[in-house]
């Protein structure tokens, strides 16, 4: 697989315009969308994640890299839809009902998308029935729930309960995260896992999907 150094660098440097232009040029030259994703975008976001973990990158750099990646994906998605190509792992993610904080969720969504997963981001303050509707529509393997406040953590349990009541729970893995969330809490509410970092979430998704 050939790496587009231009696309890799554009994402690493958070340059959305360049990422768009380089992707456009690569497609015009005959590059396959999936090759661009797996050969350039995923390695770039892997490196972004590594730099974030080692505290060389911080939230602004991660968001910029995510934006650059999205600008490339905007060009690739329609082509993949036309050819019937699908990313192997689909994830529904959102901040739970009552919680307006979405920056942590956005970081995780960017890292997941950058790892070659298809991510359906429902946003913040998401009611349980919206998660149910998204699972029914997108058929994900994984649902990620985020909460920043201790007072909104119970909405994670409510969401899991509603997914259970809708008969969907056995079809998906539910992962949770957010500053006050712990592994113990994940067990208490019947989630399948917990991560305290964006890159940890990527590993966790791979792990639970592999185990399914």
């Amino acid at each position: 697989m050939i790496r587009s150094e231009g696309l890799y660098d554009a994402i690493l440097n958070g340059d959305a315009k360049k990422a768009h232009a380089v992707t456009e040029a690569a497609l015009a030259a005959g590059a396959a969308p999936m090759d661009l994703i797996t050969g350039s975008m995923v390695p770039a976001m892997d490196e972004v994640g590594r730099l974030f973990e080692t505290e060389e990158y911080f939230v602004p750099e991660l968001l910029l890299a995510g934006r650059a990646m999205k600008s490339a994906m905007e060009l690739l998605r329609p082509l993949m839809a036309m050819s019937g190509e699908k990313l192997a792992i689909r994830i529904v993610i959102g901040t739970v009902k009552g919680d307006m904080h979405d920056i942590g969720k956005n970081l995780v969504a960017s890292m997941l998308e950058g790892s070659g997963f298809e991510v359906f981001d429902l946003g913040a303050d998401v009611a349980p029935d919206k998660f149910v509707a998204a699972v029914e529509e997108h058929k994900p393997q994984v649902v990620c729930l985020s909460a920043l406040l201790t007072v909104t953590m119970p909405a994670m349990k409510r969401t899991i309960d509603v997914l259970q009541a809708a008969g969907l729970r056995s079809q998906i893995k539910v992962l949770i995260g957010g500053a006050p969330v712990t592994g113990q809490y994940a067990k208490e509410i019947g989630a399948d896992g917990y991560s305290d970092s964006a890159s940890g979430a990527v590993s966790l998704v791979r792990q639970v999907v592999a185990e399914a």
Partner: protein
Amino acid sequence: MTSRERVFAVLSGQQPDHRPYMPITMMFAADILGVKYLQNIRDHKTMIAAQIKTAEMFGFDHVSTIAPTSEAVDLGAHFQWFDDQPPGIIEQEALLADKSALTRLPSPDSVFGASMEDRVRGVELLRQRVGNDLIVEGWVEGPCSDAADFRGMNRLMIDFSDDPEFVAHLFEYSVELATRFAAAQIAAGADIIGIGDPPSSLVGPRMYREQIWPFHKKLVDAIHANGAKVRLHVCGNTRRILADIRRLGCDLVDVDSPVPMEQARALAGPAQALIGNLDPVRDVRNGSPESIQESLEALQQSGGERWIVAAGCEIVRDTPHENLHAMRMFAQSHTAESVAT
């Protein structure tokens, strides 16, 4: 010593009779009074009753008017309001979703609406009620918090790189607003002004140093010039910016649980008064009096002489009362001399 004398002693490098104890309480305090949090932040009489009852019950050395969003509320920012938890900004409808709206904001000296006025009345009432026994703490939003409220957190993080000039103008506005708000609280009787600026911990050291630090410094100096002490509360991981925070000249700096206190002390230097940093959830809510005692014993060794007992951030609302009593007992039974040499 009164509580006020005790805290001032630590801030000025003198020996207190024992460790001060100053945890942040917002929703927890509302619960202690038995009121909804929304009422707590909208009515200063309720907030003050909650603060005083909580301070008395758990032996705090301070009372505070801490609550986010007053400045943004008075500017007309769009929030999602909740009955019993903090409001959240609706980022899609942010006041400055369009950057050009910054030039149309009212002059900072004309922004003093019902929310800010209510907070100033709260400081005034606190001073009347506690006299000189407890520290009275006022509160302002730092430039990053204001900017996140006005513009949206995600946009702000991108703006740092895309449009640093806009960020600088926005921060200028915020600092002017905060300076006036702080001055009114100081005139009403605040001993110390807390600057709440959590988003500062999301950026790296270069961005902090170049784009945020000058505005923190300006605000710290302005509060000092108005005669109050300054506390800087930046929750999250501040390890990479603490060396720069040290140069701000704050009287008290919060350290949140992601930063090991030993590192915080090394970065901030021996003269900087620090407060923190038990994990509010894992240590304080989920812990026991015994585990808290053990954690605080370890913490004070690295916290050193100028260290105040608290969690790294807000005490969460369902924290067992015995755990807060354990923190008080630790504070009241330890002096700076308890630090092993």
